[in-house]
């Protein structure tokens, strides 16, 4: 098997790294401190055509594969986890559109998403529906040539900044998860408003917003896929999203590891750099190993997705492993930096706070283990 990057991928990644190093990384501390949506970063990514990587050329994208997208997302996350998640959350909108949308829907919504003119978001999570994804309480009922949505969603990434939302609502509560359907709702639709902006442990600039649907009517063309197929659409989308979240965690882990390694080489204690002490060396070695393991699980998941093969097992493994590795690596990075690691002068404490979310979103680590067990017991 060939582990090399193609020439095309190398060219693309060179540019992404240049922009990440020169523009996105230097701004990352400020973005986190101010807690303001990184509009400039998003515009930069859009100007580079990055939002269109996986969107076919006929819809205004570049028609490239998910592996390339993953490699790009990794570098963005390394520079700024917030920007990486905004970028990744977009995929949760483009993926279901591409795989379940009608020709008309694809023609309408994909081009502005590809250009980065419109951001996307996916909304399933509710106060009563977290890991229990089937327990969605937001209702949809057929009315006047369309559907009326009622209910609310919480913690939605890219909420309010996004223009295009994929909403999971229940058409038939009696059937539980089998009654779910997916809908496309545009910002500004009457009856669709925004509520709380959640204050978080980290990733302060990442928009996580409450969506409120109050007698919100949408035309029937906005049903995504078939009625009652909503659960399946959500599960498939989450599987792809897991690669994005996993790669986001990997980016943070890489950034933390680099800081720890560079610090260890320069920090002199007891007359020598602390990188010369075995205790520190072992920590760094463990960090590097976990990062590489996470990396190839995730790359393989993306590759399988590109091949049209079953990728869910690797996606879950990759997300599970990368997020837990990121938590471990960032915690140890703070340890390696010692007192300075705890201070806000250095970014490692931020990385640690950021990493925690990745063990929870897109399916908690516990859910991932359930999924993996289900799959391997059936193989």
């Amino acid at each position: 098997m060939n582990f090399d990057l193609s020439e095309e991928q190398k060219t693309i990644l060179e540019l992404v790294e240049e922009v990440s190093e020169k523009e996105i990384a230097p701004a990352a501390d400020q973005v986190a401190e101010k807690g303001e949506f990184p509009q400039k970063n998003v515009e930069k990514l859009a100007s580079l055509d990055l939002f269109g990587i996986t969107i076919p050329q006929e819809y205004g994208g570049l028609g490239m594969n998910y592996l390339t997208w993953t490699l790009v997302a990794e570098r963005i996350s390394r520079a700024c986890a917030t920007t990486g998640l905004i970028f990744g959350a977009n995929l949760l909108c483009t993926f279901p559109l591409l795989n379940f949308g009608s020709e008309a829907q694809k023609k309408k919504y994909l081009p502005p998403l590809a250009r980065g003119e419109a951001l996307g978001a996916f909304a399933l999570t509710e106060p009563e529906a977290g890991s229990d994804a089937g327990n969605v309480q937001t209702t949809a009922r057929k009315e006047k040539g369309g559907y009326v949505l009622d209910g609310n969603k919480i913690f939605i990434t890219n909420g309010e900044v996004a223009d295009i939302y994929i909403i999971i609502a229940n058409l038939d509560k009696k059937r539980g998860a089998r009654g779910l359907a997916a809908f496309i709702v545009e910002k500004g639709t009457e009856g669709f408003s925004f509520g709380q902006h959640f204050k978080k442990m980290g990733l302060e600039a990442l928009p996580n917003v409450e969506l409120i649907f109050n007698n919100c009517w949408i035309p029937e063309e906005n049903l995504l896929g078939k009625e009652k197929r909503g659960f399946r659409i959500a599960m498939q989308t989450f599987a792809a999203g897991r690669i994005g979240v996993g790669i986001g965690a990997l980016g943070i882990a890489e950034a933390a590891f680099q800081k720890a390694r560079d610090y260890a080489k320069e920090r002199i204690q007891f007359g020598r750099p602390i990188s010369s002490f075995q205790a520190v060396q072992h920590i760094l070695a463990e960090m590097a190993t976990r990062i590489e393991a996470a990396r190839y699980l995730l790359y393989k998941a993306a590759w399988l997705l590109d091949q049209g093969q079953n990728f869910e097992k690797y996606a879950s493994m990759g997300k599970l492993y990368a997020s837990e590795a990121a938590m471990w690596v960032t915690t140890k990075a703070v340890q390696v930096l010692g007192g300075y690691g705890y201070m806000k002068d250095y970014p490692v404490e931020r990385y640690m706070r950021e990493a925690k979310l990745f063990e929870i979103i897109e399916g908690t680590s516990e859910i991932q283990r359930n999924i993996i067990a289900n799959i391997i017991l059936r193989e």
Partner: protein
Amino acid sequence: MHIVVCIKQVPDTEELPKVKIDPKDNTIVREEVKNIINPFDENAIEEALRIKEKKSASVTAISMGPPQAEEALRRALAMGVDEAILISDPVFAGSDTWATSYVLSRAIKKLEHFDLILAGKQAIDGDTAQVGPGIAEWLGIPQLTYVRKLEVKDGSIVAERALEDYFEVIETRLPALVTVTKEINEPRYPSLRGLLLAKKKEIPIWNNDYLKLPVDKVGLDGSPTRVIKVFIPELPSKGEIIEGDLNQKAERVIEELKKRNLLRWLR
């Protein structure tokens, strides 16, 4: 409208001081310095692209240099210029600014038609700012240097030139040559689409078989100036780091200023 942008590939001199001392044996470890498009030339490319977007112009980037200068031209293509030409021949090596401006002007003449030539105000390796005006002289066209704002009208341009402590508003008919400062714009990054298209585009190389320039006017032989020596300058020596708390440091500063009679203009 046809715009020609003259660009140069230079080592990233901002990065040059990245020399470290290897602690094992006190030798100098010099990191490999990247080659980049001269930053002021990036501003020139960006300006050309903005004019192209506003007025529908075509933009050609040209560069005189060794074969690897092709990377700089490819980046210009990725940013959005329409054509790129590399002027390269071993016989051009060692050219000073006179010979360089001669070669570039002859190459530009070979292009059927041009309305505006843009270039950066100076190259960050040579820092002479001489090639732009040299090209304008060879082509017999007006030159506007140190331009921080440019407006293209019908057959003429209006520019703001940066002088020592104010700006001059100046107008001239086209064709003309303009050298630009960093203030004029913020250069764009290439888009992915641009990068991938640029990879496939052919960059013709014009050597002296094609340009047919007399060899006594190019290269080292054609250069009136010669570099006879290159050396590291002697730098002033380190002074004193003042110790103490904020108040003590401030008081020491004032003491030293008094000693040197530098407080006589105190208002």
